[in-house]
């Protein structure tokens, strides 16, 4: 029983982190209809930025999330404004290819700069654990990371629905032509959306770097996690990314405990394919984004 509780708690903590990884991916997909294959690379870039800050001035990695977010926002804004906006009207393969090229650039740039070694951001407390009754251990680092991650995901979901900027993002995603007629600068809004997604990914990267190890080679894995979480939760739905992330974390934790070696991945992919075939709007989503207009 205590092992089950341990696995469940671990899965939920990991899932919270995955939600933060996936939420930006889902936002970009939902608003711009762009599948950002470089999303995982943003996560790793964020981890390296936090690592550099931590090494240079000794800033606690969870506080370093703030400058990391600023750096990644700028990076995302520039990439969208300078590159993705140029082909945003082209058929879908084009944006897929563009982000794939960006992914190659970012990942290999990081390999050149930092080598392919695994790094971790050291803290004095991250590996210590809160011991609950029944010998269930909750590492502080993972607890803080998951709480921050869920809070940020909820904050983004709230901001998109309740602030002026968020509403203009939603409006542009629903009908770009109409949004432009209402005086929204679509190019700027797209860039802000992409920047926000990159910032979320960067903060997730800082947290990932604190609770576990990272290397440029992990970028693809994080993109895949985002895919799965976003699809499970429903695209463009910020709360969906949260459900999807938590579900993915739980499934991975339980599956890793019950099933032999990597079969859990096969199960995860099977679930994704079935969800897509039966309920393409995701488990929590509504069938809206499938049928929107683009002008």
């Amino acid at each position: 029983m205590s092992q089950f509780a341990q696995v469940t708690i671990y899965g939920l903590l990991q899932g919270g982190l995955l939600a933060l990884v996936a939420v930006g991916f889902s936002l970009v997909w939902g608003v711009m209809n762009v599948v950002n294959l470089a999303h995982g690379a943003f996560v790793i870039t964020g981890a390296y930025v936090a690592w550099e800050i931590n090494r240079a001035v000794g800033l606690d990695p969870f506080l370093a999330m703030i400058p990391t977010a600023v750096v990644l926002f700028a990076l995302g804004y520039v990439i969208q404004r300078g590159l993705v906006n140029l082909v945003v009207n082209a058929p879908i393969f084009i944006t897929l290819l563009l982000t794939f090229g960006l992914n190659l650039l970012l990942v290999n740039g990081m390999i050149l700069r930092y080598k392919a070694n695994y790094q971790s951001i050291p803290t004095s407390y991250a590996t210590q654990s809160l011991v609950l009754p029944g010998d269930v251990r909750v590492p502080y680092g993972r607890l803080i990371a998951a709480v921050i991650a869920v809070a940020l995901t909820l904050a983004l979901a709230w901001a998109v629905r309740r602030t002026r900027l968020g509403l203009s993002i939603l409006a542009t995603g629903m009908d770009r032509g109409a949004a432009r007629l209402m005086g929204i600068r679509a190019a700027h809004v797209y860039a802000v959306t992409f920047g926000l997604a990159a910032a979320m990914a960067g903060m997730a990267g800082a947290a990932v770097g604190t609770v576990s190890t990272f290397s440029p080679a992990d970028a693809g894995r994080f993109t895949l996690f985002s895919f799965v979480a976003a699809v499970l939760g429903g695209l463009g739905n910020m709360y969906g990314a949260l459900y999807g992330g938590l579900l993915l974390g739980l499934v991975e934790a339980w599956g890793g405990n019950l099933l032999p070696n990597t079969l859990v991945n096969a199960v995860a992919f099977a679930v994704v394919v079935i969800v897509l075939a039966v309920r393409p709007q995701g488990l929590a989503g509504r069938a809206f984004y499938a049928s929107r207009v683009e002008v």
Partner: protein
Amino acid sequence: MTTTAPEVSTVAVAPAPATRRWRRLTPWGVLLLAAAAGLGLQTQLYTGQERTVTTVLMYVGLAAAWNLIGGFAGYACFGQVGFFGLGGYTTAVLMVHLRWSFWLALPVAAVFVGLFALLVGLPLLRLKGHYFAVATLGVAEGLREVVMNTSSLTGGGAGITIPSFGDAVTPWLGNDGFYLLFLGLAVAVVATGLLVARTRSGYALRAIHQDEDAAAAMGVNTTLTKTLAFAGSAVLTGAIGAAYAFQQVTFYPDRLFDVEITVLMVVMVILGGAGTVVGPVIGAVVVAYGSEYLRQHLPTVHTLVLGALIVVAVILLPQGFVNYLREATRQRQFSLLENVRRYRL
């Protein structure tokens, strides 16, 4: 979803029958010439070059096969490497466990992959756009995990080795043999593309690409057409995967199900010109050769440079080289900057 402007070239004056026949036969003549050139080229190459050209030929076949579903039908299949790997592993299992001849295993593997694609395609081809891309990507990744976890049959992560010398049923074909095999496969795939481009089913596929509902309203059986295109593309990819597996002799799931192979196919088709017959061939030759050249001359940064080149090429030529050339000559508008303006926000 914005699709590219439909290319309706309404020729006002119908050309004379003789001209029409000549026009219909020209591509086949060019294909024959290209095949003959491939044969002639082989005699001029030393071993290292021959291997490089063999790889290029393999990618010509793969890109042209992906073009059937991704280019003509416009369905972004991002799981194509799953068919490649499944073809390779089916061949390996047949040759290792049942001791079949390679020449029997290759067609059986290709048909098996085709049946698998039919089975998967029926539910998944109902999806569109990114959803289809992600679902097929999931299928390919799932296949790799299944191969990983059935080690008694496939060797799992430790890899599998096809018997290729000594008492092997089919001895290894040698560099010359594989050159000819991949040349033959590439010609076969391009010929399939030519057939599809000029027949009723090809027009149906293009109609589906431009507007699936309208195609259905015109009486195209969309489900049947796109499922057959998907399966056909899978059969050809599976056959190439089978040949690749035998060429490699020893291989691992990570190599045969490498997502990068799918992406390369897509890059080649898009840069060359999706939905054309010659576009994927040009794209494959340029990208495969360029990638090989970079690997040899800039070993540490070749992936980085490849990434940068993809970004630049995608921005400058979003509709692909052949389509750009066709539109540019028709409109006498060759400026690449003008080209960028078309898809800009």
